[in-house]
């Protein structure tokens, strides 16, 4: 029995980053002994309320830990709290939380990004150095970019999803977020690796120490990442950062990802279909606010789900239900898988000639609170992040300057399972501008 001590955690959470705080967080010894780590609230933590920022899971206390959390505990980490997010991961700003939005520590009139906004704000606000987020279509990288911190979406299959409350199974990963690239790499060492409880998990442990040498590296610059729809000020900051990488010995190669034309539609069809099925289990019977057992079941279920799910969640569930419904499978889900394979093919083709691909993480800086009220315009903001999820490849966002006073993120994408190289490029940049 490892001896347990605890740390005291009493943050001044001005930003509403946390949904649950563990003031006395116990921990054992290990690589992360006593290090405070915050966990996004869609990751199951035994004995700690886990809500996915949704009313429909208010009061739910999981009887088990997600595998990644289990690994953290064994490494001695102190789990200090659960962070705010867009409800069930559906959103790009954390404004879709049922428990109030999180504010961006750089400008509290702006969003922190989403859906892992709480984790990003906790780090940017100086409350923790490390946190777990999840990334389905950009949900780690977007808040990392908007809040000026580092966030990695690992290669699909590299980090176990067991215990991650599913939104879109074929797209999402738990990933590390931190103040620096080293923080993110250390966290990745702990959470990456095979898990027999996750049938999509690969045996690819991560033992890498970041290296700053990128001499000879070939970087692809996709035209679609610098075209219309990307704020010129943001594009300029990122171009400048890429220039820095060239000074370090890398060379850039222009390239194109034609399949990006379909990427967003493929992403939203896939994730809403999977979500419509994943979220069907929430009916107030086994967990969450109770269904009225005096009513007939359809009526009872509809009542619970209308009260428990926010508008965006209900919208996506219905979109997914529609896209999977009789007669539409071929038009939507099946087509989305074709589009997805086209994206993979494009990346494979590009990676035959270059080692990594670089561009902005987000097309703009953080929006003002309430600025994006129209669902479709919100979806369009994901255009630069979803391709990496569709292609299963690793992608990191590292802060590379400011535009309009707000942080801008440089995104580096790599080949499937080459997370180490992606980390190195980010590290090299970070060390060069320190």
């Amino acid at each position, binding site marked *: 029995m490892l001896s347990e001590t605890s740390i005291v955690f009493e943050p001044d959470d001005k930003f509403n980053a946390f949904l649950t705080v563990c003031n006395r967080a116990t921990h054992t010894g290990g690589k992360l002994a006593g290090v405070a780590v915050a966990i996004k609230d869609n*990751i*199951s933590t035994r004995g700690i309320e*886990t809500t*996915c920022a949704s009313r429909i*899971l208010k009061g*739910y206390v*999981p*009887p*088990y830990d*997600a595998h990644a959390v289990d690994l953290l505990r064994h490494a001695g980490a102190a789990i200090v709290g659960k962070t705010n997010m867009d409800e069930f991961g559906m959103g790009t700003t954390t404004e879709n939380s049922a428990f109030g939005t999180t504010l961006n520590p750089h400008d509290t009139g702006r969003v922190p990004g989403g859906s892992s906004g709480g984790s990003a704000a906790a780090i940017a606000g100086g409350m923790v150095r490390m946190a777990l987020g999840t990334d389905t279509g950009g949900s780690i990288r977007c808040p990392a970019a908007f809040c000026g911190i580092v966030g990695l979406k690992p290669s699909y299959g590299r980090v176990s*999803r*067991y*215990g*991650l*409350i*599913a939104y879109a*199974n*074929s797209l999402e990963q738990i990933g590390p977020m931190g103040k620096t690239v080293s923080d993110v790499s250390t966290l990745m060492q702990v959470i990456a690796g095979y898990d*027999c*409880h*996750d*049938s*999509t998990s690969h045996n690819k442990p991560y033992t890498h120490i970041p290296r700053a040498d990128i001499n000879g590296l070939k970087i692809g610059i996709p035209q679609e990442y610098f075209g219309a729809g990307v704020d010129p000020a943001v594009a300029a900051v990122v171009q400048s950062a890429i220039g820095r990488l060239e000074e370090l010995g890398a060379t850039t190669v222009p390239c194109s990802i034609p399949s990006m034309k379909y990427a967003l539609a493929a992403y939203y069809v896939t994730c809403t*279909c*999977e979500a*419509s*099925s994943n979220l*069907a*289990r*929430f*009916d107030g*019977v*086994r*967990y969450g606010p109770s269904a009225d*057992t*005096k009513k007939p*079941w*359809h009526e009872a*279920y509809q009542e619970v789900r209308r009260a428990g799910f926010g508008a965006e969640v209900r919208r996506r569930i219905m979109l997914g*239900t529609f896209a*999977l*419904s*009789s007669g539409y*499978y071929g038009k939507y*889900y099946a087509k989305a898988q074709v589009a997805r394979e086209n994206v993979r093919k494009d990346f494979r083709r590009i990676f035959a000639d270059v080692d990594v691909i670089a561009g902005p993480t987000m097309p703009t800086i953080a929006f003002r609170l309430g600025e994006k009220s129209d669902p479709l315009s919100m979806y369009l903001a994901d255009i630069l992040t979803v391709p990496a999820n569709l292609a299963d490849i690793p992608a990191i966002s590292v802060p590379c300057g400011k535009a309009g006073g707000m942080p801008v993120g440089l995104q580096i994408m790599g080949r499937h399972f080459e997370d180490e190289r992606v980390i190195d490029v980010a590290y090299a940049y970070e060390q060069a501008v320190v």
Partner: protein
Amino acid sequence: METDVIVGLEVHCQLDTKSKLFCGCSTDYRSDGPNTHVCPICLGLPGAMPVLNKRAIEFAMRVAKALNCTVLHESEFSRKNYFYPDLDKAYQITQYDKPLAEGGYLEIEGDEGGEKRIRLTRIHVEEDPGRLVHMGNAERGKYSLVDYNRAGIPLIEIVSEPDMRSPKEARKFLNKLRATLEYLSVFDSDKEGSLRVDANISIRGSERVEVKNITSYKGVEKALTFEITRQKNVLRRGQKVERETRHFLEERGVTQSARSKEQEHDYRYFPEPDLRPLLVQSWVDGIVLPELPDARRERFMKEYNISLNHARTLTGDFKLANFFEKWAKRYKENKTQKIPKLEINQKPVLEITEQGTLFIYPSTWVADTLIGELNYREMGFDEILSGNFYEQFADLIGLIDEDKITDKSAIEVLRLMLDQRLKHETLETPAGIVARLNLIRTEGDTSTVTTAIEEAINGNPKALEDYRAGKAGALNFLVGQVMKKTIGKADPVELNRQLAEALKKREV
């Protein structure tokens, strides 16, 4: 037989694995309380993920090979989405457009004699939902209680083509399927609820009706008989049979329309993203099938020299077939030990060859009598397969052969032996029971001996004269005559005494 009746069956059987299909919960839930065999995976807790049980696939492939199916090159699992309180994820993980195997057939005894081939459409693997109990009443309010112990138990679904033409054929199909699965050691039909059947019935030219929720073998024949009658009545009235789903209500023996109660189901199938596809076609070659019912039936007829009917009955149930062979072996051992010479015995056991091919096994005792007594007591073969019942039953039949007891007494003894097991009383051996109830035959059966004595004396007047004349051999001669008549059943000492007495009475 009605050639205008068309029946197809979808049979769901629980596979006899140790753990559930997608998690490590034990499948041995029947004697435990509700919700005690449940984990985050089979409870469908948010974040839990399925991991496929290899043995379930091995079992299913054994079935596919035995039923002559074609295993698909690549198969995968899909989600079948619908809402019901016993379905905790609100989807069932099943197989949809890429099942494990397709095609195949099962041969049954056709209604018109001869073998009939029932074709199969497909075989696939899926998980069982939980179990719902309906509670309450109109006044206090109705609600449901759910037990998720059964959620996640592996099921094999076997779908037949609509090749059956009567409820009887359906019953035979089901029995043959059940037996085959038991022979393959992938299924235990004694477990309650381990088998469920949905039937599709139509009268040629009319719409097809689906009958769900048939959970017993007898129920299948009842449900089909009722439904065929119902449909024929509808047609007789000049109306149309509606295409619909009906539920079978076992206690009342009727089917009831379900369509008004349920939403129309759009299952929105898509491939299960948390599982990976199967490439298991190459496993087929490595599967060694055990002896299956038909082959065993043929062997029984040859090896045990029994009739087709008896062979069919005895091999129609795996446990029964096993019991019979153990019993037969013991019976033969007893026989060859005790009665090496068979001249004086006029029972039909005449000759034992090395192969035992002319050895006659009184299989009626097993195929008819024993089964009858078990059915009467609603006992399964489980209760007599364990322990040494087969030995004792063989010994019992041996007692009949040795004329120690009559057939009638033997049945009495058998009933007692079964009752003792049924009621968990102390078990007695057949010899013990016979002794205790004094069922031993004929030492005391004076009437037969008396008759024989009278016949011997009347039939041999010279012997009587000799006896009266005091000739010593006369009594012995008469004893011998009586022995011949009673086939050695009479006790010699006692017989001497009785004969002497009878002769004295004749002295005038």
